[in-house]
């Protein structure tokens, strides 16, 4: 009797569960399987199971290690440092700014965010290239120019990601700062705490959870950035801006090594979860 009732109760959610299993669980399981085979896009009649070979190849592959390193640089520079601090700074400054300034700055930042990734990529390609806007500006200031996409590709794409993604952090922090009760800040002000001290001792501890959430979200977003870098540099020159998603694309679709590419994708997933674990711990500890 009880069984039948539970069954009936489970019915309404079952379509959703079936869809999840089919369209989410299925492909993920299939991917995990492919990562242990030597499946190719072309040039092979049948694939076979190769165990951990793909993973062994990855860790012995200089290009892979280079991509891991660049992914870390890209994530730390553009997400953790760039987007995060700039977003917080903008949110803090805008709290004090007049309404027109707030609307204008917010409008510009959010525009960068809503632009499609590829469009943003082309804009920044035009900004950094040799005949681009940045060099025109530098020339006007009588400063030396260079082809930024060629000399400092990973920093150029990191800057592009900061430009594009800061809006998200800014919005998160604007909401968080808005929830700090005015009395607390005012009390601190009365006690003689300056701006920096208020920031350090009151604001930051109070928005700690938002910081953790924000860091987690922007890290995961940044780890999977592909279009922006592809449009600006294609991972070049000489692999100097080839992050893991680009490396994965090249192995899977250009060299047609789907099995190996998928193994790299799984490793990227591991990198993402490592970051997540760190942030989750950050969220849990009490001050």
């Amino acid at each position, binding site marked *: 009797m009880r069984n039948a009732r539970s069954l009936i109760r489970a*019915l309404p959610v079952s379509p959703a569960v079936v869809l999840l299993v089919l369209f989410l669980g299925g492909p993920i399981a299939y991917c995990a399987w492919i990562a242990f085979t030597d499946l190719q896009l072309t040039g092979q009649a049948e694939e076979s199971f190769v165990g951990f070979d793909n993973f062994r190849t990855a860790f012995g592959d200089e290009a892979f290690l280079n991509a891991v390193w660049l992914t870390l640089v890209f994530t730390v520079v553009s997400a953790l440092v760039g987007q995060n601090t700039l977003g917080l700074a903008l949110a803090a400054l805008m709290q004090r700014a007049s309404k027109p300034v707030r609307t204008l700055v917010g409008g510009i930042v959010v525009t960068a965010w809503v632009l499609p990734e590829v469009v943003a990529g082309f804009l920044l390609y035009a900004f950094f290239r040799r005949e681009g806007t940045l060099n025109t500006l530098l020339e006007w200031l009588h400063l030396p120019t260079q082809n930024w996409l060629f000399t400092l590709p990973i920093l150029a794409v990191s800057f592009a990601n900061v430009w594009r993604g800061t809006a998200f952090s800014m919005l998160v922090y604007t909401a968080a700062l808005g929830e700090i009760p005015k009395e607390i800040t005012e009390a601190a002000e009365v006690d003689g705490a300056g701006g920096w001290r208020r920031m350090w001792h009151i604001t930051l501890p109070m928005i700690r959870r938002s910081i953790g959430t924000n860091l987690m979200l922007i890290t995961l977003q940044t780890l999977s950035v592909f279009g922006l870098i592809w449009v600006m540099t294609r991972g070049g020159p000489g692999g100097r801006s080839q992050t893991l998603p680009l490396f994965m694309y090249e192995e899977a679709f250009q060299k047609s090594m789907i099995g190996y590419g998928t193994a790299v994708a799984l490793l990227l997933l591991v990198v993402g979860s490592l970051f997540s674990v760190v942030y989750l711990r950050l969220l849990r500890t009490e001050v």
Partner: protein
Amino acid sequence: MPVRPTASLPTLLAVTVVAAGGLTACGGGSGSDPDTVKVSFKQSTDNSIKVMDTYLADIKKQFEKANPGKKVEFVPIKAPDSEYYTKLQQMLRSPKTAPDLVYEDTFLINSDITSGYLKPLDPYLAQWKDWDQFIDTAKAAAKGEDGKTYGVPDGTDTRGLWFSKDIFDKAGLPADWQPKTWDDVLDAARTIKTKVPGVIPLNVYTGKPVGEAATMQTFEMLLYGTNDGKADPLYDKSAKKWVAGSQGFKDSLEFVETVYKEKLGPDVSDALDPNVMTRVRGEWLPQGKLAIALDGSWLPQDWLAGSGHEWPEWSEELGLAAMPTQNGQAPGKVSMSGGWTWSIPAKAGNPDLAFEFIKTMQTKANAQKWYVANSGIAVRQDVANDPAYIDAQPGIKFFTDLVASTHYRPAYPAYPMVSTAVQEAMEGVTTGDLSVDDAAKAYDEELRSAADDQVIEK
């Protein structure tokens, strides 16, 4: 009362199985409509170039008129070469997405044959008398290792040196320039560099951003001119092994290094820009900013009327020279050939109709129209001998004559990876990140893993 997940599990499983079964069982194939033939081809990424679109639209009209009740549906893929292959291969994997007819680069055809993506055409070809008109080397281009033929070539191409007569004049170089050795080419570039500042002396494609163009238009044009002209310097056909550690390989890399180290080529950052091919044809050559270009026979299709950047004067302003062998050894000149073929996917729904479409495309008149339209080199004897074809465009005779000293790539399944390894080595010496020796060593290592150790030291 909480719902126990175990209670509903059997139901869920049952529903899942039924749903999954339904999904996989409904692969109807591209031939769901037996009267429509679906044709996939590579559409130019340059919107102003409609050569193929125009030609195919004309064939479609002829085909639909000659076969009442039948329809042609185009499935164009608009992408750069390397992404076109990827997209096509994904489509060929499943009967739901496989078109009835595809445009295959001979670069990848063997790879796709090995994968079982294509259908052997021998039964069709046996009953098609026009097939006898195709020259033997072209027939071989679409042959699998099993000896069966998997595609009908629609032309080939050759490669050589294009040069600006105007810049040559300013540099004091002859208008009938024909270098005898690599050094002659480099010396001409050096002369231009000193005497005509502000122009790019010599363009050779390099690095991964341009993909196969770097391997074939530059590297193999050099490599196949390094040895005696008989043995294949990339793949030993008798031993069925890839060649590693050859001096010719290093010499070819050194040529590329010299071009970029001595700043005889475009700025390295321009050379590694993925759009450099478009710039060479659309900007640098027509605007007189580039003196010598090592490039393919098809360039004039970008300059035809209606292309968006017409340049009918090119035949007066540009000279043509064959690429010399390294030290002028016999046969004195070198060229590489490739080209594309029309193939029928193994999972095509309407293969018979698809072959009818090939036949319409490959009547003598239509084939000739196509060679002229895309600046292709004829693979049909009857067209090659037709004065109307030879005179249709300046340069056609020059490039058709190169067919005698041309080479085809060893397009075996490992080739795409070997090609990428070549591009990486080239990019290394172009940027100056790697010395020639280190780049060659890195290539040898990549080669071993790409070719499953089927490698021979030379």
